[in-house]
C-alpha cells in the first residue's frame, strides 16, 4: 500500500514550477503574436505571405504535412507496441497519444490558415466533390482527431477515478472535474470489460486510419503532374517519413517530461534504448525510400527532372537538401546503431535534430517543385522566381508550433502522464511474481 501511495504521488499531475510557468507564458505570447499576424493576413489577403502564382504553396503546406506526419506517432506506438503487447510501452504510449492528438489538431488548423477564403469553409461540405484529395482530407482528418482523442481518453478513465480520490482534499475543484471525466468509474468487472473492448476497437482502427491519412497527404502531391510530386513512390515514402518524424517527436517530448516531472524511475535508460532502436528502424526505412525517390530517377532522368534534381543536389536548395539528408538522416542512423547513442541525452539531441530535419524535408518537398513548372516562368516580377517565407508566415508558423506545444503542455499538466492504474497493476503483478518465486 505504501508502494501505491508513492506511485500516486510520483505520477499524479503536479503544479508547474517556475520554468513551467515561464514556458507556458512564452508559448501563449508566441501564439498571440501569431494570431495578430493571421488577422493581418485575413484583412490584407495572402499578399502578406511570400507565396505567389508560381510558388503557390509555401510553408503553411509544409507545416501541414509536418503536423500530419508527426501525428502518425499515435498509430505507430499502437501498432508496434500495443498490439504486439510490448510491456515497455506503458510509460510511453500516453505521451505518444498526446503528441498525436495535438499534431493532428494543428494540422487541421494549419490547412485552414493556408486557405485564402476560410469564410467559405462550409463550401467544403455543401459542394463537396469526392474526387478531390482535399475532400478525402476533410473526411480523414476529423476522423483521425476523434480516434486519437478516444484512444487517449478511454485508457484515462480509471486514472481519472483515482485522481478524483487523490485530489479530494487537496484541490476540490480539480477533483470534481476528474470525477466528471471518470464517468463514474468503479472498476467493476463489467466496466473493465467494456473499457478493454473499446480500447481494442479504437486501437485496431487507428492503424488503418493513420496509414490512410499519411497516404492521402502524399496524394495531395502525387495527383498533380508536377515533377518531383508525380511519383507512385509518394505514399510509402510519406508513411516512412511520418514514422521518423513521429518517433523523433516522441523521443524529444519524453525526455523533457521525464526531466520536468523527475520520472527517471519510471522512464529509464532501458526505454530510451528501445526507443532508439525504433528510431533507427524508422530512419533506415526512410533512407530506403529516399534512395528510391532521389537516386533512381537520376538514372532515367528526363530533362525537366534533371533540372529539379540538380537544384536539390547542387543548386540553390542543395545546402538544405544535404543537411537534411546527412545530418537529419545518416548521422542519426550512425549514432543510434551504438548503445551509447541510445542514452537519454544523446537521444534527446538526435530526436530534436530529426524533428527539425523532418520539417525542412517537407519544405524541400513543397517548394522546389513549384518553382520548376513545365513552361518557363515569364512575365512575372523577378521576386516571383524565388520563395522564402515572409515574416507573417514565420510568425504564424511559430504560433501553430507553439499551439501544438501548448496543447501538449496543458495535457501533460493535467493528465497523469504515465498510466497510474496500469503501472500499479504491473508492479503488483511483478511483486506477486516475486512473492510466489521466493
Amino acid at each position, binding site marked *: 500500500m505504501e508502494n501505491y501511495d508513492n506511485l500516486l504521488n510520483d505520477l499524479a499531475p503536479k503544479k508547474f514550477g517556475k520554468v513551467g510557468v515561464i514556458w507556458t507564458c512564452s508559448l501563449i505570447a508566441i501564439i498571440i503574436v501569431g494570431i495578430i499576424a493571421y488577422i493581418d493576413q485575413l484583412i490584407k*489577403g495572402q499578399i502578406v505571405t511570400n507565396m505567389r502564382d508560381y510558388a*503557390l*504553396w509555401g510553408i503553411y503546406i509544409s507545416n501541414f504535412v509536418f503536423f500530419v506526419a508527426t501525428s502518425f506517432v499515435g498509430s505507430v506506438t499502437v501498432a508496434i507496441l500495443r498490439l504486439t503487447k510490448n510491456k515497455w510501452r506503458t510509460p510511453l504510449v500516453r505521451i505518444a497519444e498526446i503528441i498525436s492528438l495535438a499534431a493532428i489538431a494543428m494540422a487541421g488548423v494549419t490547412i485552414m490558415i493556408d486557405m485564402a477564403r476560410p469564410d467559405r469553409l462550409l*463550401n467544403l461540405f455543401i459542394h463537396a466533390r469526392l474526387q478531390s484529395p482535399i475532400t478525402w482530407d476533410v473526411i480523414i482528418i476529423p476522423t483521425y482527431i476523434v480516434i486519437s482523442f478516444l484512444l487517449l481518453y478511454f485508457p484515462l478513465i480509471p486514472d481519472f477515478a483515482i485522481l478524483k480520490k487523490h485530489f479530494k482534499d487537496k484541490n476540490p475543484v480539480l477533483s470534481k472535474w476528474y470525477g466528471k471525466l471518470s464517468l463514474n468509474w468503479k472498476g467493476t468487472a463489467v466496466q473493465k470489460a467494456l473499457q478493454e473492448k473499446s480500447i481494442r476497437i479504437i486501437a485496431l482502427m487507428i492503424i488503418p486510419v493513420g496509414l490512410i491519412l499519411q497516404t492521402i497527404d502524399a496524394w495531395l502531391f502525387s495527383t*498533380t503532374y508536377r515533377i518531383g510530386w508525380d511519383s507512385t513512390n509518394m505514399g510509402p515514402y510519406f508513411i516512412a517519413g511520418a514514422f521518423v518524424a513521429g518517433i523523433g517527436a516522441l523521443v524529444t517530448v519524453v525526455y523533457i517530461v521525464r526531466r520536468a516531472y523527475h520520472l527517471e524511475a519510471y522512464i529509464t535508460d532501458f526505454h530510451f534504448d528501445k526507443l532508439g532502436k525504433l528510431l533507427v528502424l524508422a530512419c533506415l526505412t526512410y533512407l530506403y525510400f529516399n534512395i528510391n525517390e532521389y537516386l533512381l530517377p537520376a538514372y532515367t532522368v528526363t530533362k525537366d527532372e534533371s533540372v529539379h534534381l540538380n537544384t536539390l543536389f547542387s543548386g540553390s536548395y542543395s545546402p538544405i537538401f544535404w543537411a537534411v539528408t546527412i545530418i537529419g538522416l545518416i548521422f542519426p542512423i550512425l549514432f543510434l546503431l551504438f548503445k551509447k547513442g541510445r542514452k537519454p541525452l544523446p537521444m534527446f539531441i538526435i530526436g530534436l535534430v530529426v524533428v527539425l530535419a523532418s520539417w525542412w524535408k517537407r519544405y524541400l518537398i513543397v517548394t522546389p517543385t513549384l518553382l520548376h513548372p513545365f513552361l518557363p516562368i*515569364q512575365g512575372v516580377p523577378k521576386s516571383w522566381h524565388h520563395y522564402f517565407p515572409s515574416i507573417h508566415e514565420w510568425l504564424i508558423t511559430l504560433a501553430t508550433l507553439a499551439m501544438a506545444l501548448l496543447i501538449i503542455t496543458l495535457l501533460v499538466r493535467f493528465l497523469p502522464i504515465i498510466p497510474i492504474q496500469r503501472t500499479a497493476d504491473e508492479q503488483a503483478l511483478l511483486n506477486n511474481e516475486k512473492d510466489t518465486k521466493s
Partner: protein
Amino acid sequence: MKNDSNSRRKFLNNGLKAGIATVIGGIGLSKMATKLNAKTDGKKVELMTTDGHLVEVDASEIIEEKTTNSKSYTVREGFKNKKFVMVVDLAKCKNALKCVSACNKHHYITGKNAWLKVYKMQESKDTAPYWMPTACQHCDQPACVTVCPVDATFKRRDGIVLIDNNRCIGCRFCMAACPYSTRVFNWSEPDQGDITLNLSMEQETQPSPEHGGLPSIKGTVDKCDFCPHEIKKGKLPHCVAACPNGVFYFGDKYEDTVTNGDETLRFSKLLKDKSGYRLMEGLGTEPSVYYLPPVDRLVDFEKGLKQYDEYQSVKKSE
C-alpha cells in the same frame, strides 16, 4: 479595325444562318399550323441549307427552336452542341502583344501575371527560338477540375473551363495541378478601380464565371475564360480579334471551322496541312488549344525582342 469588326459580324451571320438552317427541317411539319396564324408580310430571309445552298424563305415561316434559344443556356452547361477550339499559328506570331493588352483590358486584369502571355521559347540551344502565346488550354481532361474540392472550377459541355469565384475557397490546388501554369491568384484585394461602373456599362447585372475578372475577388483564382461573353454576342474572343497578325483562330469543332477574323478555315484540314499539335500531349490533358509549328516563318523572331519583358505581362497604364 473596321475590317475586323465586319468580318466578325460575318462570322456571326454565318453562324446564325447555319443555326436557323438546322431548324428549317422542323418547319415542314409545323408549316401548316403556323401558316394559319402567321401574317405573311412578304419579308424574305436568306438561309443556308445543310448542304451549303442559299435559299430564300418567307420570314413568317421561320420558327425559333426552343432548345437553342438563350433560355436553355446555363452558365455551367454552356452552349448547346458546340465545342470551342482555338488554333494558334506560331509561324505568324511576332510578339506584338496586342492580344495580351486586349485581354488585360477587357478582363480588368490588374495583377502582375496576365492570363494570356507570350512566351519566349527555345527547345534547346541549337533550335530556333519562337514566340508562343499561351493561356488556359481548356483541357478536355482538366487536371484543375479533377482536384477542385468544391466544384468551383468546372468544365462545360462546350469545352470551356470556367471558375466560379463566388464559390472558390482559395486552396490553390488547381494551380498546383495545372501543368500549363495558367492560373493566377488574387493574393490581395484586386484593384480594379471603377469596375462597378463598367459592370453597368457592359449591361452585365451579375458577376458571372462567364466574364472572368468582372470583378475579381480576393483570395480566389482567375484565368482565361475563352470569352463566352463575347461568343454570346457573336464575337470572337478578345485576343483573337485584337491580333494584327491573325495568329489566333477560334471556332467550333463540330462545325469544323475556325476563323481569325480575316479568313475562315476548315479546322481539321488546317491541322492536317500544317501539322498541328497540342502542348504536352503526353500528359493526356487533351487541350482545346492547338498549335501550328513555327515553320516557314515570314516574321523575324528578333523583332519581337523589343517588346519582350521577362518580368512584366501587365502594363500598369492599360
